[in-house]
């Protein structure tokens, strides 16, 4: 366990001394919520309180960005030649994978704690159980997204530049074609079918359901639970497989 903690701290200490990134993330959230979100909600007339809807959506977006960052970081490390060093350490690969997952989880916890507290304050109506369920969903989504980015790393075997391009473009489309910013019922039919493929649609709607939003504007929670479970299990499984068998194939330099 000590070696796992040491590995987690090895990466995390750069972000915590000083914690500039975390403070900037929080400041960015405050600006987005209290200026952009508040002003856009003045313009939205078809929903009673769009600010609440947007606040949850923004926390889900942050979760996606942090999960995505964890997965991509791992591949970038491979290209920068840091991964071969980690692989040469006297620790089994499952520990290395666990350390990456824990690091991602810790980063996620540090980054979204304050935004989530503010979001809960904006919503106002919640219970301890609903908050715990929402937090659980966010972490499950974060692990799934990190696994997805790791799973796509096979592209990096050919070219890291193409990997960065595909993953960056995909991230934008996953957010736009989802229910993070707008309810599913307002999506045109052609966009709605694309939204079914975005994990954020299920993550955002499930978190909103737990936080007491009108189920009429959300997707069926059974689909959301099934989709998020399938995403996390399949992509993390693929990540474990890649780390065990294929990771040496990533080109350095």
């Amino acid at each position: 366990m000590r070696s796992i903690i040491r590995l987690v701290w090895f990466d995390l200490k750069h972000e915590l001394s000083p914690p500039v990134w975390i403070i900037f993330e929080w400041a960015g959230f405050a600006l987005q919520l209290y200026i952009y979100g508040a002003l856009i909600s003045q313009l939205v007339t078809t929903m009673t309180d769009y600010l609440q809807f947007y606040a949850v959506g923004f926390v889900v977006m942050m979760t996606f960005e942090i999960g995505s960052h964890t997965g991509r970081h791992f591949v970038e490390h491979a290209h920068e030649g840091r991964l071969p060093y980690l692989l040469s350490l006297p620790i089994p690969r499952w520990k290395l994978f666990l350390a990456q997952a824990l690091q991602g989880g810790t980063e996620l916890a540090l980054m979204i704690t304050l935004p989530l507290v503010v979001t809960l304050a904006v919503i106002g109506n919640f219970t301890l159980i609903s908050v715990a369920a929402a937090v659980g969903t966010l972490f499950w989504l974060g692990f799934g997204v990190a696994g997805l980015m790791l799973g796509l790393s096979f592209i990096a075997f050919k070219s890291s530049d193409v990997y960065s391009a595909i993953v960056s473009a995909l991230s934008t489309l996953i957010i736009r074609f989802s229910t993070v910013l707008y309810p599913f019922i307002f999506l045109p039919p052609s966009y709605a079918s694309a939204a079914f493929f975005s994990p954020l649609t299920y993550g955002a709607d499930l978190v909103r359901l737990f936080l007491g939003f009108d189920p009429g504007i959300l997707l069926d929670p059974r689909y959301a639970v099934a989709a998020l479970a399938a995403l996390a299990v399949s992509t993390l499984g693929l990540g474990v497989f890649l780390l065990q068998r294929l990771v040496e194939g990533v080109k350095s330099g």
Partner: protein
Amino acid sequence: MKELSRILQLARNDFSYFFRTKWLMAVLLSLHLSDMLVVALVYGKLMSFNYFRFFVPAVVVMGLFSASLDTGRRIWLAIREGVIQYYLSLPISTFGVVAAYLLAGGLASIVYSTSLLLIALLVLPAQAVWSTFAILPFLFVLAMGLAGIAATLAALASTHGEYFFAYQQMVQVTLLALSTVYYPIETIRSYLPSFIVPAVAANPLSLAAEAIRQFAFEGAPIQPSFLLSMILMGVPFALLGASAYAMVLRNLRVKGKL
């Protein structure tokens, strides 16, 4: 004359680097096209006014802004990777290097945003297409000003390189949020304190968005005073960025490091 030709050569090199960066192109195009064709359309259904008509011209400005800000990343990268040491060894003045970067930043922004503008013209009927091309030179000056802001950030972060992206993100979010890119000035006036409203109206992004909306898409006659205000906002920022970057280069030339 030789100096000018070298400035143009260096600017061409930096300009082509912007378009050759695959991941950047993927991010910018996916972001702006999805903003234009997805976000604008869906938000339009949530609002009681034609948000698509309001927001599509603003996406062109967002493209102009993002491309301008990338000048800062290229300066930051040149400092970090030592390319700048090579540039300083070339037979070109410090001023020439600075001018080349700002010129390339402005040009890359205008080329990239013009491509978005052409797409905007396809999806949204414009009342005065020729006015669009008439305001492009003024948008270029504004883009150089925005590139100047990016250069200032890169200069500020030259000794703490890793903070550059944090500065850039904060400036980007703040300037966009406090502009009329996403919402009309009336909404801002009704929600934000009154002392902020003039700053929002004078924001370079608000000026660019209003120019494209009014003169190109609404077909209002071009007002010379409005175009003058675009120049008056663009030039000081370009000069600020040029001074900050020149100062960094001078330190580098004298001390050999930052």
